[in-house]
């Protein structure tokens, strides 16, 4: 049975994790359920970033897979430093996928062009245009779910040009009675929440799903 992580405005599906194992994973992370959920999402975010760079598979799914493996290992009581272990798991998964995929495609291979970055595929360009329009629709839907204060925070945080942004953010942090580091972290969490929402919205949108 799949487990779910519910978090203010969010719902994450755990691919292969039972509810019991998932609950014990969260309890291991922190005794307070809200803090545990925050720690869970923070760790997952780090895994997503690693998989984004290593270019193998869907980073969201791979991060879930990594979290599942970590949870299973936790059940065996064999993890001392969860951060180091999580990174090691991410590297192992990357390696497994890289091994599973082909290493090199010859120029004489008929399909070689498909494998290159910047493929001049006109259909892809049209799909991209549709995808962009759908992204905007999903963004609208997800932004509407945000509390007004969060929407305003994003607006203020990303306002201004490159040169004035740092000073502007410092002032914003002072105005909100917090440090720049905390403000940054708050915005990152908020943005990640929004990103997850848009990602799920796109996955469930049949207009995009049938073309990609």
């Amino acid at each position, binding site marked *: 049975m799949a487990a779910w992580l519910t978090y203010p405005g969010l719902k994450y599906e755990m691919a292969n994790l039972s509810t019991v194992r998932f609950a014990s994973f969260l309890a291991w992370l922190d005794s307070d359920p809200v803090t545990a959920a925050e720690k869970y999402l923070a760790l997952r975010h780090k895994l997503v970033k690693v998989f984004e760079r290593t270019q193998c598979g869907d980073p969201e799914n791979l991060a879930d897979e990594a979290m599942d493996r970590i949870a299973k290992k936790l059940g065996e009581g064999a993890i001392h430093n969860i951060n180091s272990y999580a990174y090691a798991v991410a590297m192992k998964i990357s390696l497994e996928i890289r091994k599973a995929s082909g290493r090199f495609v010859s*120029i004489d291979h008929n399909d070689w062009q498909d494998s*290159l970055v910047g493929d001049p*595929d006109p259909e892809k360009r049209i799909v991209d245009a549709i995808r962009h329009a759908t992204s905007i629709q999903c*963004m609208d839907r997800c*932004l509407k779910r945000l509390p007004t204060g969060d929407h305003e925070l994003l607006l203020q945080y990303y306002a201004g040009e*490159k040169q004035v942004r740092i000073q502007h953010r410092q002032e914003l942090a002072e105005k909100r009675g917090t440090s720049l*580091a905390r403000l940054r972290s708050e915005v990152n969490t908020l943005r990640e929440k929004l990103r997850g929402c848009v990602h799920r919205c796109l996955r469930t949108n049949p207009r995009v799903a049938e073309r990609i």
Partner: protein
Amino acid sequence: MGDTREDKSMRYLLGKLSEQETAEFQAQCFDDDDLFSEMVNLENDLLHSYIRGEFSTAERQEFETGYLISPARRWNLEFARALEHRLFETGETPVSPEPEPLLTHRPTRAGLAVQSWPVRLVAGAIALTAIAAISWLAVIIGRLNVELGQLKTQQVESRRTQQELQAQLDTLRAHQGEGVPGSYGRRQFPYVQPPGPDTMAFNLTPGLPRSAGTIQQLILPSRVLLVTLKLYLEDDKYSSYRASLGTIEGKQIWRKTGLKSQMDSQGHRFVSLEIPPDILNGGDYLVKLDGAPQGREVEEIVVAYRFSIARH
């Protein structure tokens, strides 16, 4: 200290760290929440700067070749673009503007409390004229709204047609690039995609073909300001590379050291070279790639790539 962290995050995001440095940095991010937060923040700022056109041409190119290396990262750009669009786009106001609330500011009863009938007649006439004018304005506004809607639909259709025509044009170009008669039996190397209006990128695979029929031929338009060659590697075991470009007769014309390999969306490794096009006058060329093992001098010839340039 802060500068060093930001600099390292920047180099990580742009793919300028070696594999070992990358692994160390990623591990550090797992242990240090602040560092991870700074890195993510910088990544998001880079995405927004790119979308807002705050980068120079060189920075833009660096971002495209160093950061946008995976579908997931390109999706991040898509997400940032959608966010930017919705947060800061003010042009898309509601399509059907409300008519001016002319009747909401009626004169007070005291203002019209005139006893004389001629004055009442005149006032009545004025009121009727005003009502007629307002009705006429409402009709005009309604028509304009319909026309505006039609224009928007036409604009969407026009964009779609333009996209379809562009798609057909691209398909034709791609077909033309697959070996046309009169190209001296040489295989014309496929045009990949211009990263920008003034640049062209080509992919080269290693090897020194024995016959002219298999030499990779690159067509270079005269307007191009920068040529990017992606040299695909069969085996990527060096921490950095040195590339030297020369004519087939052995005259060296360009060299660059300290090159790092990158990975394409399929996990294939390549080294990217940015070459000023004015040194490529046409004819046959050879690029040699030498490898430098970690912490040591360049010592080995790794691979060579032969290609031909045709200017037009």
